[in-house]
Each structure stands twice: as C-alpha cells, then as structure tokens.
C-alpha cells in the first residue's frame, strides 16, 4: 500500500510532457506519438487486464451484490438499499464501525507520534552502532506475520501471561486481569498490538525522510540559537509533512480495515467489544452466508476509508507546492 502511494507521488513529477516544438515538426511528432501510444497501450494491456479482472471486476460485483439478499449459491432477491439501512440499524455493524474508528488512535496516532519521537532520537546518534541496533529492533515487528504477532500477544495478555506476571512482580497484582477478556481493556489491548506492529514502519519512513533534510538548515538554526525543541518543530516536522501523511494514510487504512490481529486474538469478543467491520464482513459472508449484507458492509467500509484518507492526500499535495 505504502509503495503504491509513494510511487504515485514520485511519478507525478516526471510525466510532464516536453512542450514547445516548432510548428513544422508538429505533424511528425503527432504521428510518432500515436505510434508510441499504440505500443504503450499494447504494453500496458496485460497489466490493465489483470487490474480489471482482479480489482475492478470484483469491486463492481461487490457493489452489485450489495443490493441483493443472496446466500452465495441459490437464487437471489433484489432488496435495493435494505442492506445499507441494516448497517445503521443493526448494532453489530454500526458498533463495529465505531470500534474501527477507536482503533485509529492505537493503530495510527500512537505509532506516528512515537515514530516521530524515536526517529528524532535515533537521528541524534545516527552514525553509531546503537542506531542500527535500535532501528532493527523497532522494525522487527513489521516482518513478523500478523497472525504470529496476534498469537504471541494473546499469550502475553493471558491471565497467567507475562503482562500479569510482571504486574504481580512489581506489586500491582490488583490490576492483573484477563486483558483480552475484559470489556474495558479488550479494545485498547488489541489496539496496542497494532501500535507495536505499526511503530517500526512509521519510524523507518520518518527516519528516511529525516535523512533528506539539508543539514545546513540545522546548522543555520543552531547559529540562530535554536535548541533541540525549536529545531524539531521548525525544521524536522515541516520537512516530514509528506512522510507523516503517508504514515497516517497507511496506518488509518490498517485500522479501519483491520482483521488479522483481531481474528487471532479476540475474534470480536468479549460481547462484540472488539468487533471490526473486516471481521463482521467475514462472518456475514462465510458463516451466516449473507453475501449481500456482507458486500454492503464492505462497500460502506471502502467508502469510509476513502472518505477518511482522501482529505489526508490533499494535505500531502499542499505540502508539495
């Protein structure tokens, strides 16, 4: 996802066509362009076909299915917007959307803020071996499959798991509980797993962004008497605008479309407290066999993700100009 976004951002700058050819050669160029266009189309065709068949077509089908009541096998019934109305009516579905928004705090805000802090700290000792070690350690969760992370954390959170053992060791046994089974702590506990995973990615992206900042800016600031705080807010933060936008975009999508971590650790329990749209779509489609309802929720989720993410892209673009 992040590759696609960053790729698109850099491509935008390169594809400005060369202008200002003399009048006499215009026709020749036009012909050449057409020929080239044909070739380009031919080269693009396989990829475009794959994109149409595997991305656009299923998307369109989901939209179509969302207007039917269908069990996936036998005949379907047209129900119009009923499935969409049900999303607002049924507390499982509306509640799952609210849960997903709460997850943004953990999947997005915490990793971006912590990522800024750690990246800035690591930049301070960028050349030492410690920087490499801390970068690796913090990035490690990113390469662990989410399923493995979910299993590991559910052990940590278990009633006799390490979290509770540590709490008891430091005399906080009273706080110990089955973290994933408690109505008040289940969602934050799941959220922290997401934060732990996303931190590495954010930190690495931000760190990469920091290396692009001209050191002369910092020197100049220091000559003007700026302290580390001033440097951070006046130079580092504004220069990282694009990277932050990418981090927030990727992590917000991860929060809204989350599935794996929750499927492994809580399966939506206790009492639907950690139910998210991704999990509810899966349940509806594969267990209740309500393909239409599942598609409607999927389409609503897609619209919601776009609604949240598109304004973020504008922020990114303003940073460009």
């Amino acid at each position, binding site marked *: 996802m992040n590759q696609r976004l960053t790729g698109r951002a850099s491509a935008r700058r390169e594809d400005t066509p060369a202008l200002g050819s003399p009048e006499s050669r215009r026709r020749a160029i036009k012909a050449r362009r057409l020929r080239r266009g044909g070739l380009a189309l031919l080269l693009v065709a396989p990829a475009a076909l794959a994109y149409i068949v595997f991305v656009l077509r299923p998307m*369109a089908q989901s*939209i179509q299915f969302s207007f039917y009541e269908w069990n996936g*096998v036998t005949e379907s019934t*047209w129900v119009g917007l009923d499935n969409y109305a049900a999303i607002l009516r049924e507390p499982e579905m509306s509640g799952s959307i609210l849960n997903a928004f709460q997850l943004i705090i953990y999947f997005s805000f915490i990793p971006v803020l912590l990522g800024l802090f750690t990246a800035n700290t690591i930049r301070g000792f960028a050349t030492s071996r410690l920087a490499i070690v801390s970068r690796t350690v913090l990035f490690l969760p990113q390469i662990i499959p989410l399923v493995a992370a979910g299993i590991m954390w559910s052990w940590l959170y278990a009633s006799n798991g390490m979290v509770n053992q540590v709490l008891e060791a430091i005399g906080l046994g009273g706080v110990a509980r089955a973290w994933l*089974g*408690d109505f008040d702590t289940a969602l934050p506990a799941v959220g922290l797993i997401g934060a732990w995973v996303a931190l590495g990615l954010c930190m690495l992206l931000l760190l990469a962004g920091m290396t692009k900042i001209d050191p002369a800016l910092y020197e100049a600031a220091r000559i003007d008497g700026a302290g580390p705080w001033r440097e951070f807010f006046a130079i580092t933060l504004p220069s990282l605008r694009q990277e932050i936008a990418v981090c927030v975009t990727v992590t917000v999508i991860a929060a809204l479309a989350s599935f794996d971590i929750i499927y492994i650790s809580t399966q939506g329990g*206790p009492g639907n407290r950690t139910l998210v749209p991704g999990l509810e779509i899966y349940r509806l489609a594969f267990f209740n066999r309500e393909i239409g309802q599942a598609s409607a929720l999927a389409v609503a989720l897609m619209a919601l993700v776009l609604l949240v993410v598109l304004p973020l892209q504008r922020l990114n673009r303003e940073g460009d100009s």
Partner: protein
Amino acid sequence: MVASALVLAACSAPGSNNDAEEPEESAPATEDASALDCGTEPVTLKAYIETGFPLATELFDEFEAQYPNVTFDVREDQFAVLTQNAPRVLVDDPPDLMRLPQMSELASDGLLLDLDEYAAAFGWDTWPASQLEQMRVDDEGRRGNGPLYAMGLNFSMTGVFYNKELAAQIGMEEPPATLAEFDSYLQAAKDAGLVPMAQFNGGATGGLAFPLQGLMASYGDAGEINDWIYQQPDATIVTDTNVQATEHLQSWIEAGYFADDINSMDYAMMMSRFIEGNSVFIFNGDWESGNLDAQMPGNVGFFLMPPVEEGGSFGAMSAPLTYGISANAANPACAAFFLDWIATNDEARTIAVEIGGSHPMGPADAFMPAVAEGSVTAETLAAGAAIGAQDGAMDFIANATGSVYAEGWTPNLQKLVAGEIDPTALLEAVQAEYESSVG
C-alpha cells in the same frame, strides 16, 4: 472509475444461472438406482469430513475391509472451513458423504438428498423418533418435521464432567441429586480454594450456553426448548422458567464459581485446565469421553444437570453427528447403505462407542459393545439411556439459526459474565436476533 467498472460485472442477478436449482434426480449410470447396497463393481465414495476426529476414518477403514469393492476418497477440513464451504462444495464438487454444519438452509435450498426413501427401505423409521427428529427439515427450513436430510454416525450427550480426586476433597462422594446440592458442592470447592468451573466463553465462543441450557431443562420443559430450536411458530426463549435458569447461571457467576478469565478462555484452554486438575467441574459433551478416559483414567465422572427438586425433570443436549448426501452425489445408494451399516453392524457400533465415545444410532435394542466399568464412557452411555427414558433430549440452543450463536448467545453470555446485562435482557436480545433470521 468504480462506476464505470460496474459495467464489467455481470448484470444478471447473482446466482440466477446456477445449476443448483435443478438437482439431478436420476442416479448416474454407474449405479443401479434400485439397489440398496454398494454392489460388487468397484465404487469410490467421495467423503468430505471434519479433521481432528478419527471416528469417520476408522469407520471408513472398517467398511473398506468388509466391502473390498468400496474405496473412500476422503477430504478433510476444519469445521469452520467446512461450514464456509458447505453450499459451494455440495454444488460444485458433490460429495457422497459430508459432515454437515447447521443444515436447515442447506436442506431447504435443495442441496441435500432427501433420505426418506432410504429410511423406509432400511427401516430407519422404526428407530426411536427422537434420534432422527433433528435431521428432518420442512420446506420452510424448520427442523423437527419433514423429510430426512441426514443421518448420524452416533449421537452425543452433554452434561457435567468432574474430577473425582478433587470431588472427594470437597466431600462429594455421589453426583448431586438436586441443583441446591450442586450449588453446595460449588461453594465447597470455592471455599477449598479450588476453581469450581473452568468454562470456555472467550473470543467467538459462548460456552456458558452449555450450563445455561442444562439449567433451562431443569427449571422448564425440554420440549419447549426444542420447539424454539426448531423454529415453531411463536416460539420464544423469553419464558419464566428460562429467566429463572439464566438467573441461576448469573448467581454462579456472581458467587465466583467460574474461573475469573472465562471471557478469554477457549475450548482447548478449558480442556487443558481440567486435565491438569485445575477445575473441579466442566460442562461438556461425551465426544471427550474417550480422550478423558485416556488422559485421566479412572479419575473422571459424569452426571447430567440435576433437577431443581429430587425426581424432577431434567434434560441434556443431545445431537447426532450429522452426515448428509449431496443432492448431486454420484453414489447415493452406496452412501446410504454405509450410513445404515454404521447403525446396524456390530463392528461399526463398537467403533462408534470406543472411538467416538458416544451412543450409536439405531434400534433401542441393538448390540452394545462392552465398556470398561468405572470409565467415563460407561457413565455417559448410562446417562444417555436415562435421558432417553426421560424424553429429555434437546438439540443445542446454539443451533436454532445459522447466526444465533455468533450474534445472539456468544456476545450476550459474555456480557452476562461482565455484569453488563441482566438475565431477562439477555434472553430478549437473543430472541431479537433469532427473530431477525427466522423472520
């Protein structure tokens, strides 16, 4: 872009061009339609079964040994995968034998073979009617009546398992005869510093449905609960006796009789705690009898949820391990013959008890294998007979509709544990979910 892509999607309604609507009635040429056995020509039965339970494959092996012209082509999956794939597999790759999930929709959608003809031919209709009741589905998808769409490999029985050593510690020599007596043993276990009951109720599981339904049958009538499960008109789960049962369950939660982390406990955790001696009682079914006899020989006892007053009514969830035949199966007669063989062949009945741990299907006076005295298998089989005499067999309240477990019982039982819902509200929430799918 999305809008233009709509054009790419097929514009006819989904599912309308499916073969499933016209299941082929005529038996394929490979099989003589009138025959009621597997013949003498080589036959390959395609079976789609649940992985992790050796009963089916043991039966297949024995059948292959007795009928050498038959071979089984077995595909195994986890039950969750099986549930997801059921409709598609029954249509696209029709098995001759398939372990079935909740079957009312599969039957009413015409994906399963109507077995009534075979039932009459093999004499299944002379067996105790309660054995087959759960597998009958009428044309509106209500179970309990109508044509037979499946057969059981055996039928399970649920109740309370207890650790005999720990029970002796708290002075329990005999299983309790009344609920009040059971309560006193739970309190004694708590006072002795033991965990009275570990019960899975975390994640997507609502294992408190086991004790709850047992309590419902002690306070009320098992038949009424079955009516609700079979979606009889105007059936409701919100009755006075069910509220009393739920209140009783709540009193156990509030007294701290359950482990304090049941809302994050899964089935495997419950089993390992019980086997390690970290729980005095658990509510479970006899599919674990064989396993418990192997892991804790001589140390496990079983009793049914006791009645409110001595000699009062009681009940147990008892369900067949259902196998069905696809409406498009290639060898339906041979598959039906196999299902009959399981219930009537002595070897097969022995396997059903020894490997499956549960009572075999079939006539009430059929052969029963000898079971070791003092084993929990012997106790669960005896309990099965008691339930049969009482007419107290119920299907699971979790099976009433396809989604009532995941969206009704599980979240609301978890809320009951957390003290977020009261008994009446719990039953009302489940009833609302039930009505949304029964319609």
